[in-house]
């Protein structure tokens, strides 16, 4: 370290005059500033678990100094956006599988944050079509370095594809890829946290206690980039960076307070400190707003209302759920500042708790204590989709996507009863790696367990067949299903391909993953509608109210492929070489042979003492050559044995084996 000179007066004389401009803050009309919000949504789930959903939003204007000078917005992300001309991007790291049956599939949280296991990345680029692939490749490498993950494996053209209809309509410039087997851990979370201005030093992110987050049932960390336009001027657009972390946790059961019902039926009571092991010490001072929400679902509200009406005392009081936490079902430890109610009749309720600035004395610890056992169900996806493999063996198989109707579809039928032909749209996106050779002509559709003609139900179809070692196969279907459908099954057959020995992963025997299929329902809207719309909208609320299609992912399939013996090349080389050597040696010997002379010598030696050994050898050799040559006259037979077709046959056989071996190895 070199110290600056003691004669500290620097002799740089800069222009003083120009600089007396007022700071740039003066022209900050709100549009020009970078903003940051932090929010947390908590929701009890029917299967005694708790969903916690962290939402951080960072916005920066897309001005000249974007990607160069930043105050809150992460510089690294801004530079990515600028360098690769990203219009929109989403990257998610997920561990565990979202349980659509129990945790719901018809709400904004699940359709935005339920992601396939591993890494999923899609990006829309603002570049000419021929540069999109190059940008994608660079982006995967940059992200891989940024998030300490093997996203760079998405660089290979066999791993990504360009779907048309499933995501936002960005024709040609969208790329989509997944890595189903990527393990997600703290090394991915830390760089993600680094993008937040407060990191996990203060504010809601301080709750993220690594052990409790990673022992969750479902863990999905997401980064979503979009460009939002504000006003008519296209130059006024802002870059919006959403970072969400969705965790499904099992709260530790707090003992005590429940003496009249057996604990097994009760929902576990929990608090922030019991599920995360920490309390909120204060907001991140840089955040524009910092809120915690507690969502009570539609089903639970209905149940509680039923319960309330059956309990006489409360009915007399006329209290409802708006009266904070003083209802039959549960009690809240902190009174909310605001209660948001959905417009519809049986609607979900949202309690809002703004977080104050840090004070040593008070810590925020929201808790919920259940007083009465309640059983409810979450809103389900219109069609519950599952995917499985059929067939056995290492040669061929079939993929089936099975969609079963749930109560949402029944509601739809009820709602549209007047309409005679009620249909709804289902988009299916299925991407298969090239070594699963799908025969698209074998695509079959069963509606209500009866085989149907595809064209009756498929409105549009986009297939790009896989090319060996170049691109994966992609199939996009737009189905129009009748509302009263009970089940729909898509079935497609495939052959398992062979990989080159270098292409197998280290754990080849485990099998190969087929990425999740995406089933989306554009006719259904997952957004919630809250009554007091006029009030200030935080990003979380606007996200919950956003009209967005319902999306669900199917399971990842594990396909076992034939795995070779990896020492095979050496064995083949060695055996081939040995066979060749044998063949060559015997050929040479045969060519050099002088039959007449040998016989003469044999005859000469016949009378001698050591003939015994020779005789034995001769016998052995004669036996070896075939039983036919039993005649005691070897002189006549030996010459004929040379010409005999047997020898030729034998030599040919050896040569044939050798050639065959060489050919197949």
């Amino acid at each position, binding site marked *: *370290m070199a110290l600056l000179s003691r004669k500290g007066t*620097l*002799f740089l004389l*800069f222009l*003083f005059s120009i600089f007396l401009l007022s700071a740039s803050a003066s022209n900050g009309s709100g549009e020009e500033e970078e903003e940051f919000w932090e929010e947390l949504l908590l929701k009890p789930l029917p299967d005694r678990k708790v969903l916690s959903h962290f939402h951080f939003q960072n916005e920066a204007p897309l001005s000249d*100094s974007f990607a160069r*000078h930043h105050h809150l917005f992460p510089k690294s992300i801004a530079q990515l956006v600028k360098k690769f001309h990203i219009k929109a991007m989403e990257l998610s790291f997920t561990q565990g599988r979202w349980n659509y049956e129990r945790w719901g599939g018809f709400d904004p949280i699940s359709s935005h944050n339920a992601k396939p296991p591993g890494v999923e990345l899609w990006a829309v680029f603002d570049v000419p079509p021929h540069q999109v692939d190059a940008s994608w490749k660079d982006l995967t490498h940059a992200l891989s370095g*940024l998030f300490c993950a093997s996203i760079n494996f998405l660089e290979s053209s066999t791993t990504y594809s360009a779907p048309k209809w499933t995501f936002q309509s960005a024709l040609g410039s969208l790329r989509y890829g997944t890595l189903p087997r990527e393990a997600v851990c703290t090394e991915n979370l830390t760089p993600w946290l680094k993008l937040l201005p407060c990191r996990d030093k203060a504010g809601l992110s301080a709750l993220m206690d690594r052990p409790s987050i990673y022992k969750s049932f479902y863990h999905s960390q997401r980064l979503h980039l979009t460009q939002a336009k504000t006003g008519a001027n296209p130059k006024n657009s802002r870059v919006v960076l959403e970072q969400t972390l969705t965790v499904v946790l099992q709260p530790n059961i707090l003992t005590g307070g429940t003496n009249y019902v057996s604990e097994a039926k009760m929902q576990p009571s929990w608090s922030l400190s019991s599920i995360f092991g920490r309390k909120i010490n204060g907001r991140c001072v840089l955040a524009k707003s910092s809120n915690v929400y507690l969502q009570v679902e539609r089903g639970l509200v209905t149940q509680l209302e039923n319960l309330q009406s059956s309990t006489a005392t409360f009915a007399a009081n006329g209290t409802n759920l708006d009266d904070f936490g003083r209802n039959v079902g549960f009690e809240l430890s902190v009174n909310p500042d605001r209660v948001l109610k959905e417009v519809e009749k049986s609607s979900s309720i949202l309690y809002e708790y703004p977080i104050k600035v840090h004070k040593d004395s008070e810590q925020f610890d929201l808790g919920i204590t259940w007083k009465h056992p309640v059983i409810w169900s979450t809103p389900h996806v219109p069609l519950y989709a599952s995917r499985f493999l059929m067939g056995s063996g290492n040669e061929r198989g079939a993929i089936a996507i099975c969609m079963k109707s749930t109560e949402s579809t029944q509601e739809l039928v009820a709602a549209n009863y007047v309409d005679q032909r009620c249909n709804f749209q289902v988009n299916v996106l299925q991407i298969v790696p090239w070594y699963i050779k799908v025969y698209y002509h074998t695509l079959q559709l069963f509606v209500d367990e009866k085989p149907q003609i595809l064209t009756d139900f498929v409105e549009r179809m986009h297939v790009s067949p896989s090319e060996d070692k170049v691109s994966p196969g992609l199939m996009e279907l737009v189905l129009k299903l009748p509302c009263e459908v009970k089940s729909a099954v898509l079935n497609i057959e495939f052959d398992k391909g062979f990989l080159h020995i270098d292409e197998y992963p280290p754990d080849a025997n485990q099998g190969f993953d087929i990425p999740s299929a995406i089933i989306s329902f554009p006719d259904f809207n997952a957004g919630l509608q809250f009554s007091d719309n006029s009030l200030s909208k935080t990003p979380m609320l606007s996200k919950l109210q956003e009209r967005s299609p319902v999306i669900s992912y199917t399971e990842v399939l594990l396909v076992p492929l034939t795995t070779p013996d990896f020492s095979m090349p050496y064995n083949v080389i060695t055996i081939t070489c040995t066979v060749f050597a044998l063949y060559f040696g015997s050929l040479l010997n045969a060519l050099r042979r*002088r039959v007449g002379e040998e016989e003469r010598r044999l005859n000469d030696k016949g009378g001698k003492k050591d003939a015994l050994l020779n005789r034995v050898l001769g016998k052995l050799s004669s036996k070896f050559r075939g039983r036919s040559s039993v005649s005691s006259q070897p002189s006549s037979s030996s010459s004929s044995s040379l010409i005999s077709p047997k020898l030729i046959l034998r030599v040919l056989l050896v040569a044939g084996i050798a050639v065959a071996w060489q050919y197949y190895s």
Partner: protein
Amino acid sequence: MEEISNFPLNPEPPEEESPQSQMHESTPDRKTMRTTKPGIKRLILSLTVLFSFIIGFPFLWKSIEIYRAPLPFDRIESFSSQLESDPLHFPCRFQAIFVGFDFSASRGLGPNDVAAAITRKMSQLNPNSSRCGNCIGGDYDVSVVIDSGSSCAQTEGSEAKCPLKCGEVVFGGKLSDEDFDEMLKRCLGNVGGGGKGYSVVVFNGDKEEGEVRAVVGKYRHAWVLGHVSEDEAVSRTAEIFARVFMNAGSEGNSIRSEFMPVGADGRIVLSFSLLNAEPQDWIYDWSFHEIDKTLLHPVIQALQPIANITVESQVLYYTPKSSFSYWDDIHGSHIFSTKDLPFFLNSNEWHLDTSVAAGGRSKVLQLVVYIPSAKECPLQLELPNGDLSKTNGFISPMWGGVVVWNPESCVKDLESKDPDRRVISPQNLQKLFEVLMGQLRQLLGLKSDNLYVGQSGAYILLGSERGFTEWELDVLSGKHVCFNLHSCATTLGSLSRLVQSLPRMIIIDEIGKQVKFSLEAAKFAQSYASTGIYNASAVSSRQARSLVEDAFFHPSIMSISYYSFEHCFAIYSPFFLPVTMHVILAALREWKRYKQENRKYLAWKAKERIVS
């Protein structure tokens, strides 16, 4: 296959049979004699196989050979040795103008003698002039103009106008240093066409004028004003030439010239970070946009020939320093000493991430402004001698610099709920950036002082609003070319050593090409430098360096695919070992047999002859 099917048709055995039956009658001794010439079919066959093996061997060897692009090892060797023995030099011209002196009258010296005296003095002052990037050592191109008022003499080949036209102006009015500098620039112009021309003007004043004032301007001029003797004038001139213009006032105590924080692609990213150690206390922001426009832009423009500079900035929060500081009553502040500096940077919490936009091999220089928390405010750096540092900052060579900036009032507003958000005032920011620019100058190997004290007096160094004066930039770009060529030579050397030490490593054509082009670019850089075409030299040297770095970090080298000989042996030996044994044995046996049989035949022949 064909040979086999032909084999039984081979008429030899019957042939052999018949003479033998004949021999039975004529000569009973079959073991020692034979009547026919021995057959050579089998011999030819086995020898053909053997020879075809021998001939085929080179083809096999060729087919399993590893492709290695030829690298010019000898040229690499000669390039680095040449750079070692004959460092790069730029031609410089020095011009000394003495106004109001009369050397011929007082000493009897002509302008040529004065020039020789200056050269001598310069060599004394600058003994290690052979350093790379310097002016051509030994014989400096010094021209002298002596204007004694009445007469004017000059060395041959001098381009300056004689007598100096602007002499009267100097003594006429009191000019500020800046104006004087401009005036000199106007009337001297740029000395010399190619290369760098430096000039020193010595004005001999009256005795009453008092102190001698020596100023080095921001262009390539310096002047000495006041009453000086002839000897002093000569020595001062020589000192300005040798010490200031050629070495930028550094005497080797600052950063070594080998370190030039420029990336291999010729780029520097200046990454400014404002660190709020504890945002709960106060949050400071800056209007970096304005600074970028007004202060940094001219600097970047000035440094254009040396490096392509980009600027970016960010504000980070919750970034405590990792060293401790203590309260000192005497200074009334928290103190961290120079011993703590290695621990000041907190790499766990300071996410001064490397720029994504820079990519590749750009050099990122971190310039950090640290705002202490209320607990440790004000925070001052104590120098080893007990004084407080005026700049309150330090640099770490090749990494960047840190400045601690204390808010005006260290009292935290306890009443307000929200932490106060403040913006660093433009005046403060201006001061801060002067310190940061000084740090940048030091990182580049220049002095951050405006005074140079030499043997024969002090010299005021005029600053430029661009941060770097022209003569400083000359020194820097000389250093830059040198640094590039040196690192190019070192990288080439290591590349050639690596390649030679691994004889079975694949070297693709591209690497060979890159090495070739790099050597060519280096040659160009040298030739441009010797003719004094500066920018071209800088460009070529940068190119040479980046090309060789490209070659060295080529992915195919990074993943050294080393196909070992053992591997090759293991694959081919199962075939070749048994087969060659067969072939050689067969050939040997046949040869032996042929000789034996031939001897028999000869014996029979001899016998026949005797018989006949």
